[in-house]
């Protein structure tokens, strides 16, 4: 984007991107009990990738994202919608009746898995995908 990428920025971005992505997933997972959730998580993730974009260029950001952001939007919508019909198919309950399961994970012990969490994952993907679609499109138009 700029003719001379700053060394400080690019070094920082390399370190910050994985941290921010990790942090965004952390926000997504803890959202049900503490501040966070799919919306906020998605925005944090998007800001991480946007930082990366500013430090390098759009193709590098695309590569870091691994998935076309438009596909991510679509996938997120599908996941969010499907989370609503789990209850319908499993128990014959109305659309978006939340379902809860206790899952035992070796090191972490009992974990709560739920259809709202799956829904939130969909929200996360839509937010991240949408923001990145817009940012990348604008950045590529600039280039």
């Amino acid at each position: 984007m700029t003719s001379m990428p700053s060394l400080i920025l690019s070094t920082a971005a390399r370190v910050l991107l994985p941290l921010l992505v990790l942090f965004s997933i952390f926000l997504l997972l803890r959202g049900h009990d503490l501040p966070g959730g799919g919306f906020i998580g998605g925005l944090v993730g998007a800001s991480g990738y946007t930082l990366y974009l500013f430090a390098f260029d759009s193709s590098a950001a695309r590569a870091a994202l691994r998935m076309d952001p438009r596909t991510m939007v679509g996938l997120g919508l599908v996941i969010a919608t499907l989370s609503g019909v789990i209850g319908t198919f499993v128990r014959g309950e109305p659309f978006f009746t939340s379902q809860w399961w206790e899952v035992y994970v070796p090191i972490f012990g009992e974990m709560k898995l739920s259809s709202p969490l799956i829904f939130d994952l969909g929200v996360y993907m839509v937010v991240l995908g949408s923001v990145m679609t817009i940012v990348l499109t604008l950045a590529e138009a600039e280039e």
Partner: protein
Amino acid sequence: MLLAVLSGFLLAAAVPWLYKLLQGRINWALALLPAGLTVYFASFMPEIAAGDQVLVSYNWIPSLDIQLSFLLDGLSLMFALLISGIGTFILLYAGSYLHGDRDLPKFYIFILAFMASMLGLVLSNNLISLFVFWELTSITSYMLIGYHHEQLKSRKSALQGLLVTVGGGMALMAGLILMGSVAGTYEISEILNNGDVIRDSGLYTGILILILIGTFSKSAQVPLHFWLPNAMAAPTPVSAYLHSATMVKAGVYLLARLNPSLGETELWHTILPLFGALTMFTGMFLAYRSTEIKKILAYTTLMALGTLTMLIGIGTELAIGAAMTFLLAHALYKASLFLVAGSLDHSTGTKDITKMGGLARIMPITTYAAILAALSMAGIAPLFGFIAKEMLFEAVLESNYLTSFLLVLTVATAMLGVAIGGVIALRPFFGARKETPSKPHEAPFAMWIGPATLATLGLLCGLLPFLPERGILSAAVTSVYGEYESFYLTLWHGFNLPLMLSIASIAVGVLLFFGWDAIRARLLWLDKVFAYGPERGYEKALDGMNWTAQWQTRVLQNGYLRYYLLTILATLIGLVGYTLFTGYEPRLLFDFVGVQFIEAVIAILIVLAAVVAATTHSRLGAVVSVGVVGFGVALVYVLFSAPDLGITQVLVETLTVLLLVLVLFRLPEFLDLSSTAARMRDAVVAVAVGSLFTLLLLTATELQLHDPISQFFVENSEPEGHGRNIVNVILVDFRALDTLGEIFVLALAAIGVYAMIKFRAEEYKK
């Protein structure tokens, strides 16, 4: 049952992957689904024929008495079998017909979604879910009619079909809701037992008229018939499926379905036969005038829809029996004929029937199917269409209202029917070979198996009429009429009046067949008269709407952001101000007790930043100060313990600033363009909005109109939602549907930005 209905949608979603995997052979894989569904529904036949019903119900929105419930009885089973059975052949056919087309995966997606919507429509046992599926068929058929979306004609026809059917759908919705509230339930199986309640209520006439508008628009009754022939812009397999065998019959289906609760009144016995008979004759007459094979078939479909409406309107047991028999016969021969028409078009390169000839030797199997199906349409023994026509005559002779009017139109239609049947069966296949744009060849297997099978079924049903009668027709009549005393379908009824009428119509029909070219030429002057038909009314209405839209766009959407803001804010001041000052007592009580130092600092900071943003001459400065306002608001959220809102606000602000930076360099240089007067005006509006909202907030905090809902969320968040973060529990659980809507909007916005910047129409055309 739920899975059977939804499987089409699920498979449609998987099409893109399957297409990558299977490429050209995908139609064989996809056809397995409707084939499987046919077997599944057929397995219910013994049970249903014995007089049972299958009822399955899922809660959907129980608080509004809306269920996802399905009813399988004779009527719905017959439709379900037709939809899935014919659907199998259509999918096979389409793979070959549209082979190599760029948009083929899209086609499969829409046709599968359409099939699923249609199944949902005929199986629904709830008025609301029926309506949802009803609208889904309109939308998917819009996509299918407009499949060749590069062509103006396709898009126009698709829009016309959509506007007419969806417009009718609005009336239908009103009618269904009225009916539901009169009956006290939306469950169809319960409403059917409550016919007297509806017939005796003062709303009966309203309900009937609203529902008839809906069904007439869908089933293309005069004067709303014009969209159907235009829908022939769709690829032929679509026409065969939607516009002959399934979608247009949805209106007829609903009439038949509601016959026990709406029928048996004078109004019903007059309106339906009147419109039905007019449609029947108009359709056949227009078919006789056309030379394009798809147009001819489309108009004969109008005839069939009119006939069915008329028979359901007559409403005697015999008439209902005739309607069900005719419906089955028509579905078999019409789907077959449309597919034949597609094969002819595919093979010769023309749709004009007068330009074809002598194809019987080259396309023997297609010829076989065409002759059987066309003779069934003409009502010639021993085909199934003959039995249907005999019953039609008998039913019309027995009718209690408008008897002679109906009889004249029915006989005239039958005469024209014989002539058209002859034209389709003989013209393209016999006589001298004619030069066609491309060299004709027999259709491939995937394209002849459908028409040949369906046409043969028409012959079998004619020769062994007790099979369809025992298997499905008796049960279908029971569900429409309420009871069934065997009427024994048979080819030979003895020397009676219907047989005489048949013979007479065949005799005149043969004359009309030989005079086809001459009579058609004599009727050309009618073109000028038809130019003033109902379609012109539609065009005028559409033009008027466009004109209004353009006018208000010129006025409101003037392209200047500053005027948009001005309009929005002025409207806001007007509406909110009016309500506030007339309905409530505005309070202007500033209470600074308990304000903390830090809060005051943030408030001043926000105000200062806003002033800077409004007055600065540096664009970057403006962006930064707007950012300061945003962060200030975020701090307010944090102070009043709403961390989620705070975090979101911070992130949105950050991203907004980033986005602005991306576009900042593309903007022209900063210039002072506005006059002092304009600035004064803007300042006045800004101050007015600010003051109004201050006043509104101060008043609102004093006023409590309802109990706040927040208490419910606070109390139920943990026990019901299993979460301590109330904001998140609301977003993903209590109000998940709202959130779903919002993320769809978000996705649309992203696609919008992408399309605006990236998409160039020229690049799409290869």
